[in-house]
């Protein structure tokens, strides 16, 4: 049986840059590779990625595999899967890391099935058991009500997807050195079973959720589209943007792309103002990393107060206008 050794990150490049989630994976991967004393490699796919490959080395990767004749975004999943499988055969890593984002969610389970590997999705922490040397994988379960820790031995490769924001993004060190290995992979076209007709990115006006320093989030308590005007005003004054829970999304008050939580965005702004939000674990999964969490809720028993740093019990319609005015005054 093959010896599996080393860590392979399935990385992503956007507009020539290593994405934030990939930098987070490098932090996690670097730590594991130091603990195991094994090499950290990364796979980068897309056009014009040579600069990104160098960047990856600065961030802490030992070996970069580049495949630059395939555009990443337009690649159907079977093609990407075939590519990763191919690199996997070359590198024979014991651990493969993906981000729990569009690509990882889709590809990682398929890869596990194909390779007969063990897999754990949406992990928040990875560690090497000092005694058994097995990989310990911590993952929120039951919507975030509990955390499970799984162990798998190293006779089989282990695939993991990491939740965004689970680690700080790696910082560059331009003195670092590593190998960049361009790989030419011939994909048998017959494996491609799906045609990707189009990829549509919905324009976000203003600040992206994953980059926002301040997020004012509204939930079921806002009770309609109109109420969000107050939230928008507060967000604007604080230089932030709007987020939502599942309820405004299901009710069609606000666009689904703003949803925060287990199945939406995972954010960690400096300030998260939760307005009319009960604090369900599935929602907190997306915002519990916020540095300061403020809750405004008319129910003193609401679970959100268990998680918040500051709280106001009251109707948001009464709480927000004076808050907006005071913030305006303070900002001057």
């Amino acid at each position, binding site marked *: 049986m093959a010896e599996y050794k080393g860590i392979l990150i399935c990385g992503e490049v956007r507009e020539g840059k290593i994405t934030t989630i990939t930098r987070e994976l490098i932090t996690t991967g670097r730590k594991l590779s130091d603990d195991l004393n094994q090499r950290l490699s990364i796979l980068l796919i897309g056009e014009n990625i040579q600069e990104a490959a160098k960047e990856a080395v600065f961030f802490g990767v030992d070996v970069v595999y580049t495949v630059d004749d395939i555009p990443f975004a337009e690649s159907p999943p079977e093609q990407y899967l075939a590519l990763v499988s191919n690199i996997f055969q070359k590198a024979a890593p014991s651990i493969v890391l993906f981000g729990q984002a569009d690509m990882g969610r889709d590809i990682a389970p398929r890869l596990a099935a194909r390779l007969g*590997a063990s897999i754990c999705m949406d992990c928040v922490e990875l560690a090497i058991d000092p005694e058994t040397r097995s990989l310990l994988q911590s*993952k929120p379960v039951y919507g975030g009500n509990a955390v499970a820790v799984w162990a798998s031995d190293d006779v089989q490769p282990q695939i993991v997807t990491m939740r965004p924001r689970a680690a700080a993004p790696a910082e560059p060190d331009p003195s670092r050195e590593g190998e960049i290995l361009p790989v030419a992979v011939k994909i048998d076209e017959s494996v491609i079973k*799906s045609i990707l007709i189009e990829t549509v990115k919905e324009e976000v006006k203003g600040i992206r959720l994953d980059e926002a320093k301040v997020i004012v989030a509204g939930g079921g308590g806002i009770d309609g589209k109109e109420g969000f005007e107050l939230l928008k005003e507060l967000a604007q004054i604080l230089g932030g943007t709007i987020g939502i829970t599942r309820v405004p999304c299901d009710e069609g008050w606000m666009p689904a792309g703003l949803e925060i939580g287990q199945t939406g965005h995972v954010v960690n702004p400096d300030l998260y103002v939760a307005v009319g939000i009960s604090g369900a674990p599935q929602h907190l999964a997306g915002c519990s990393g916020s540095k*300061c969490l403020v809750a405004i809720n008319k129910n003193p028993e609401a679970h959100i107060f268990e998680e918040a740093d500051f709280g*106001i*019990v009251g109707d948001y319609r009464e709480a927000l206008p004076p*808050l907006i005015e*005071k913030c305006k005054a303070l900002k001057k």
Partner: protein
Amino acid sequence: MNIIVCVKQIPDPEIPPVKFKLDTESRCVVPPEGIPPVINPYDEQAVELALRLKEKHGGKITILTTGNESASGVVKHALSLGADEGIALTDKAFEGSDSFSTAYILSQAVRIIRDYDLVLCGRQAADWDESLVGAILAENLGLPLVTLAETVDVVDGELKVKRVTLDGYQVFSVSFPALVTVSHEVGQPRLPSGWGIVSASRRQIPVWDAKDIKADPAKIGFDASRRKLVKLFIPKREKKCEMIEGKTTAEASVKLAERLRQEGVI
């Protein structure tokens, strides 16, 4: 169009967090008292999507579940919504199966059913939140797979699927038969009719065991599991919320702004 929908029975995922209890010793979740288990919400949305396709294109909907004796309850729920048939895959030997074993068990049953154009699964089960079974099932059956579907249409004899992404969507086209995992963007599932509930409750749900599906004992149950659960715990909240009070809500709001300024957050 003949559709197979795979569904799972789970503890109600939307109970208040205070009602969520664990037995850390045995690493098990204690079912909340007085709150009955439910169909996994994403699976219910998969049933909804199947019903919409059936309304448009005709055909038959077969529900598949694997679980303990009570699991046929979710099959009956799906029948009450309008599905045509259901099968429960139940056997002591299935207990403790991981996602790979579960997908194997389902794939054995799907092979017996044989006559299908589409297999639908929820995007993930809201208990262990793995989101693995659908993808592994597709690999096992050699079917094209599209994950996280919001809508599914038939265009020129091909399946057209809108897949939700974090900042938009993608549109895929695949040939039949195919497997699609369903996301909550599908929208609210319908409610069962009174008559639907009555007639479903009278139905006898066929139960298939390990022998019926010719399951390889090495591939099912606890022993087949690729990893071990070493710990299960409820994360401790270390935070203490500072409640800002005032004679009126407005007064509290002003104090809040001042407090946030003091802390340097605004």
